Structures are given as C-alpha cells and as structure tokens.
C-alpha cells in the first residue's frame, strides 16, 4: 500500500500494482490500446506514456512506488499520444468509413478522445493478407496494430497459442500457428477468448457486422475514457480481493 500522485491528485496503490492499475481503480483514465487488465502487461503501443518524476514511462508496465509524481493529462503527453495514434493509422489500412468495427473500435475511439483530426504523416498502404478461411472468424490484417492481445489471450487463457508475430520492424505481421498458416486449420473456436479481445477490427466474428447499427455502438454513445474505466476498474479490483 502506498500513495502516488497523478496530475497532483493523490492516488492510493496496492503493492505490485502498475501505474495504470492504480489509476484505473481510482477512476483516472490513462489512454491505452495494448493493455487490457485481464492479461499480462505488454507495453508495446506506448499510448499509455506518462511522466514519472520527469521520465517518460509506460503506465501499463511500470510499477507504482511510494511518492511517485506522475503526469498524465498534459498537453505534451496528449500530443505525443495523438502522434502515436496517427502512426498506427498510417501504418495499416484503416478505412473507418466502411469498417464493420467502426464505433466499436478502440483505435478510432482513442483518436476521437485525443481530438485527432487526420494524420500528419503519409500513409504506408502496406499489402497485408486477409484470412477468411475460418467459418466463423475473419482475420483482416490490414487493421492489426500488433497489440498482441490475441497472442496473449490464446496462449494464456485459451491455452492454444494460436497467434504469433513474425518478421521484424515495419515488416512485422501476425501469423497463425497452423501448418497451412490459415485460421481454418488452427482449431480456433468462436468461443475462444482470443476471438473477442482485438481492440480494432482485425479479428471479427462473421455475420455480426450490422446487428448493432452504426450510431448506437459502444463509442458512439460514450467516450472511451468512460467505457474503459467502467469495464476495467472491477477487473483490477478483483485481482486483489
């Protein structure tokens, strides 16, 4: 047990908690994409960058320690996060206007939250494979942001270890652990946790696209800060109860 401050506000923490866990429990939103409190922290998207005693750290992996002075909601950090979000948009192929995840997508929602208008960088337009082989699940790599939530969910929760990242650098890509490399042969089931954790529209359940109409989707009604806190605070609290 101890106390840190985030933007001047005193925040209690439990031993072993990360900054983001302490913040979430106290009702302070720190933008994040690769983090989901149900899984092992990863620390790759860097959206959760905060300043701890003057140094930039990832809130999702950095352990809370007594007396830390954390800056979170500052112009400088939000500008950095906006730039990171823009990077994720230009790196892949995100055509929100006709993406079926629109309105439920965390990348898009975080973009709105950070008041991103359009990316300042040129698009990469990479060629990425779409895997529609599976009966019930679609894998559209165009939208993958390499958060590895599917990797972690499949490995640590489903016990199937169906996904991995291959390649290096900007040529990274998500691969499926099956001899053919296709989802169909992987033994993935629609009930797998991994089928439901993708923050963007890269892993989708087929035939669900327009069940909820655009305009009444998750982030159409509430901002990602609200949605995230209400969903994640109980998960974090349950860990130490």
């Amino acid at each position, binding site marked *: 047990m101890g106390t840190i401050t985030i933007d001047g506000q005193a925040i209690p923490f439990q031993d072993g908690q990360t900054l983001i866990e302490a913040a979430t429990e106290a009702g302070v939103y720190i933008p994040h994409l690769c983090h989901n409190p149900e899984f092992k*922290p990863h*620390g*790759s*998207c*860097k*959206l959760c*960058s905060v300043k701890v005693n003057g140094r*930039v750290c*990832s809130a999702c*992996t950095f*352990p809370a320690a007594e007396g830390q002075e954390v800056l979170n909601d500052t112009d400088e950090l939000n500008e*950095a996060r906006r*730039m*990171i979000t823009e*990077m*994720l948009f*230009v*790196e892949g192929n995100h055509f929100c206007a006709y993406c079926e995840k629109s309105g439920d997508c965390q990348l898009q929602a975080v973009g709105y939250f950070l008041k991103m208008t359009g990316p*300042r*960088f*040129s698009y*990469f337009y990479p060629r990425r494979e779409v895997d529609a082989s599976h009966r019930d699940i679609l894998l559209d790599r165009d939208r993958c*942001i*390499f958060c590895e939530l599917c990797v972690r969910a499949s490995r640590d929760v489903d016990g199937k*270890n169906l*996904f*991995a*990242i*291959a*390649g*290096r*650098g*900007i*040529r*990274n890509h998500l*691969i*499926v*652990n*099956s*001899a053919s490399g296709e989802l169909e042969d992987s033994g993935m089931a629609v009930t797998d946790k991994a089928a439901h954790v993708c923050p963007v529209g890269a892993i989708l359940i087929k035939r669900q696209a327009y069940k909820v109409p655009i305009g009444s989707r998750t982030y159409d009604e509430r901002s990602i800060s609200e949605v995230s806190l209400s969903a994640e605070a109980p998960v974090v609290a349950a860990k130490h109860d």
Partner: protein
Amino acid sequence: MIFNIKTADIEPLRERAYGADKQGNIDPLVKKIVKAHGNDPTELLQILRRVQAEYRHIPQRAVELVATQLGISHGQVQGVSEFYSFLSTTPRGQYDIFLSDCIIDHLQGEPAVMAQLCNRLGVKPGQTRADGRVSVDHASCSGLCDQGPSGLVNGYPLTRLTLPRIDQIADLIERGAPLATWPQEFFAIADNLHKTGLILDPPLVPGKALEKAFATGLDGTLAEIGKSGLRGRGGAGFKTALKWKFCREEAGNRYVVCNADEGEPGTFKDRVLLQSHAHQVFEGMTLAAAIVDARQGYLYLRGEYLYLCEPLNRILEERRRLGLLGRKILGHKGFDFDIRLHLGAGAYICGEESALIESLEGKRGVPRNRPPYPVTQGYLGRPTVVNNVETFAAAAKIALNGGDWFAAVGTEKSKGSKILSISGDCARPGIYEYPFGTKIARILEDCGADQVIGVQIGGPSGTFIAPREFDRKLAFEDLATGGSFMIFNENRDVLAIARNFSHFFAHESCGFCTPCRVGTSLLKNCLDKICDGHGTAADLVELTELSRLIKTASHCGLGQTAANPVLSTLERFPHLYERRLREISFQPGFDLDGELEVARRLTGRDDAYAHLTQEE
C-alpha cells in the same frame, strides 16, 4: 597482425539446393541437425542457422519439423526465421553475398562495388539469380570499416573489395569454385592495432588474473574492481562491480554472458579483442563467474563474426586443457564453469541486453520490459550478468594489477582507458586505446585526419560533432562511445550521412513498440524526401516532431537513440537542411505525374492532357 581464416574452417559449398535424400526428403537431415543440438529449444537460432547453411533458406517443411522436434510452436520457428537478416524463408544463392551498407563502406566505394558485382553476375540487390548460383544483398555494418568496402560470402568476410577483385570474384562464382580455393588474401583481416594502453598491452598471460584473484580472495577482487571505477564499455556505462554484486546477491543458478554482438556501425574493437586477446576476454568472464558464482557462460557472437567461431572454440578447448575452464578450475573445489558460443544471425537489436537474452533463449530479439533487470531475471529467468567484451578484458587486467592501477588513468567519472574503432576519412584507421579524458583533436591528429567536417562519436546512436567541438573529451560525462569513431571530411554530405543512419535504424527496429516501429520508417521517408529535393519547411517540422517523439516514447535504447543523427545534425548544421528545401510550404512526397503512368499505359495515351504538371 593479419588474421587469416583457415581454409579448413570454411564450410564447404552445398552443391545441391537441397541437402535431401534421393527421394527429396529433407526430414532425416533436419532431424539430425535438431538432435545434434540436443533437441533443446534454446538452440533454435543455432539450429536455424544450420538449416539455412544446408538449404540456403528455411524451407517450410523444416519449420514444421523443427517445431515438432523441439516441442515449440510453429509460430515461434516462423517468427524467428523471419526476424534475423541472415535467415531467409526463400532460397538464396549457392554463393550468398552481403555487402556492408555502412556509411564508411560507402565512402570507400561500396556503391561502385555493388554495381559492378550485380552487373557482372546479372543480379540485383535483394535477388537470387534464377539458376540459384548467387544472391546479392545489403547488410548492416559488418564491422570491417577499417578495411572496407567489405562484405560476407556464405558468412565469411571479404575485405578491401575493389573493382578488379570483384571481377575475380565473379569469375570464381561463375566457375563454381569452392570458397576454400579462393585466394586467401580475399579473407585476410588486419588487426590494425595502432595504439595500445592498459587493456591491450601487454595481453594477459592465461590464468594469471584468476590466480591473482584467488590469492587476493574473491571479495577482495570484487572490491578492487569497485575501486578501479570500471564502467561498462558497451554503451550505458553501468558500474561493473555493482552489477556483479547485485547478481551475486540473487539466489539461484546464475549466468555470465559476454555481449559480442557489436552491431553499432563503425565499431570493430570487440572483433579485434576476440581475434587477438580472446584469453583475456574469457578470463574476465571466468572471473565474473567466480565472483557471482555462475556455472555457465555464453559468448553471444554476432553472426558476421562466424569466422571467429572455430578459433574461439580452439581457445576454449585450450583453456579446458589448462584447467582454466571446466571442473575444479585451478584446482578450486566447487568452482565449475564453462563457456559456450552462441551465434547471432544479423540483428543489431540483439546487442541490447534483454533482446540478447531473448535471442539466447531461441526467440526473436525483442527487448523485455524492465524492471526486472537481467541481474535479477535474465537468461531463463535467472540472475544474469551481461557485459561487453571489452569490459571483461578490462576486468581481467584489473584483477591482476589492482584497482588503483586502473583508476590512476582517466577522469574523475571515467576511469581507465577506452578502446576506439576509428574509421572514415583518416590516414590510419584501426584500433586505438586512449585514456578517458583525451581530447578529440588529439585523436584526430594521431590517426591522420584533416579537413574534418565532423566526427560521429558512438556510432549512429551517438552524436555528430562539428569542428568547434573538437576540444571536447572522450568520457562518459562528455562524449560517451561504445567505441565507434567515424571521421568525415569536408567533401562529405552531412545529410547523406544522416540519411544512411536513418535507413539503418528503420532496418534494424525490432518493431515491438509503435514510436520506433513506425517512427523510424517515417523518419527515413522524410529524410529521403528532403535529400531528393522534395522537402519543404513542413517536412522540417515533421522531422523535428517525429524525432522528439521517437526519442522520448520508445521502448528501448534503439528507438531512444534512433533520431540522434537527425537531431544532432539539425542542431549543428540547420543551414544544410534549409538549403535543400523547396520554397513552398508543402510538397507531396510523390510525383503526381508519375502516379498516372499506369493509367497512361492502360489507356495507351501519352498526349499532353494525359500528363499533370505540379502547381507551385
């Protein structure tokens, strides 16, 4: 001294594209390779190196088989196969050639050498010739900048490449001549030792440092290393004695790892240490093992130094015979320690200690989250000391001569001396050992450099300094360097240097975190645009914003330093950037008219209306 590769150490050429039995079945051989590595998953990278050498690529069938035999996922094998530059999932040539893309090799004529090679052999960079005879590609710095342009053929280094030599090489390749029959001087590697100091001279007599350490006592020896003020020579400058102390305080099996990844362009001093002072390095590792109580050590050798494997293994053998490795070292009961070599396969990021450990475990070289640090949870989750080659070499000498001997040299915060790899525009490139605190001007004078426009200190991740800073000092508190010291004269284009470095980082980013994965490519594109004359004021703004973000938000040291070439040249030579800019505020990075080419071809038109001119 010239180091000649023994022809007996060179692997024979694989005559057929597939080392398979008559039915074309590769399974028996792949299984044999896996078995020879003890069916041990941590040996994955070593296994894949063998498979690559055997089949000139990693066939899909081998991926499956290796995964099954090792009991690991298909994804891990595939992931590793695609991560390292010297592994390939598509067939490469019987002669597989990489030329060093380092800026220094460029200055020495690499572009012309590459052009000639491709021309003579009828291939393009990145291609394998249709008959499978040869493939040619670029690789990051091969650590031979003092004798470039350089490259690798089937993993073995080619030095001092000239156009006539390229002609000879092309003939040999067309004739199918085995590498072992190529003229030896093609593979000759000079030490180029120009100035020695505390660490290099005299080389340690094998066993002497360990004997002294046992005579002094291990606690006392650690205290001497503390007193010497020795700080890590690999970059970060962490106090060595403190690292060893932290490690020994942890419980459980401990490991000692020597970081010989030496990937920073322009650095080659670890190569020379391993060529000429290997006993001293191994003795330093053994000393560390005695102090932290470790039983197993690894030397992580960068893939480019494959040719050192056999000589180093011979020295390890010799040390076992001398009772300096193995069981009961120097007769001390309970002091058992041995060292194994582990080869990399072309990935600069594997020099970062936690990525190195991942690679040692048979994974992609992705840096871990910290804390925990390797001294508490390193190799296989155990406490691990990771030190640079030079750090171990220095520690061995300190154990022998005492802390005061070392601390008498250098500055208050940087004790002892530092080995530099000097390359670029100077009369005598090579290895120089200097006391910390030496002025840059003095170094430039010694190696015969004049009309210098700038020096890149610490490699691409370091700082580019201008002539007005030449009275600055070599020291952790002033100009820190892992050893790279690249000199550029007034005829060189500063932007071309920054551009080369930005290509390096984009190529080497591991891709784990967003700022570096995407940012290094954006930075590269932006510099390309400016260098190609399409840059505008808006691009300079983008360059600055991007650089700041990559520096502060990246996950590891690679990303955190990847923008240094831009930031340090922009700060010192803003006029050179401004001179390249167009006078409008924005110009797209592409050629509008060029984009219409496909449409013109499809419609068969080429009239004036089928062309666009850009409004300015």
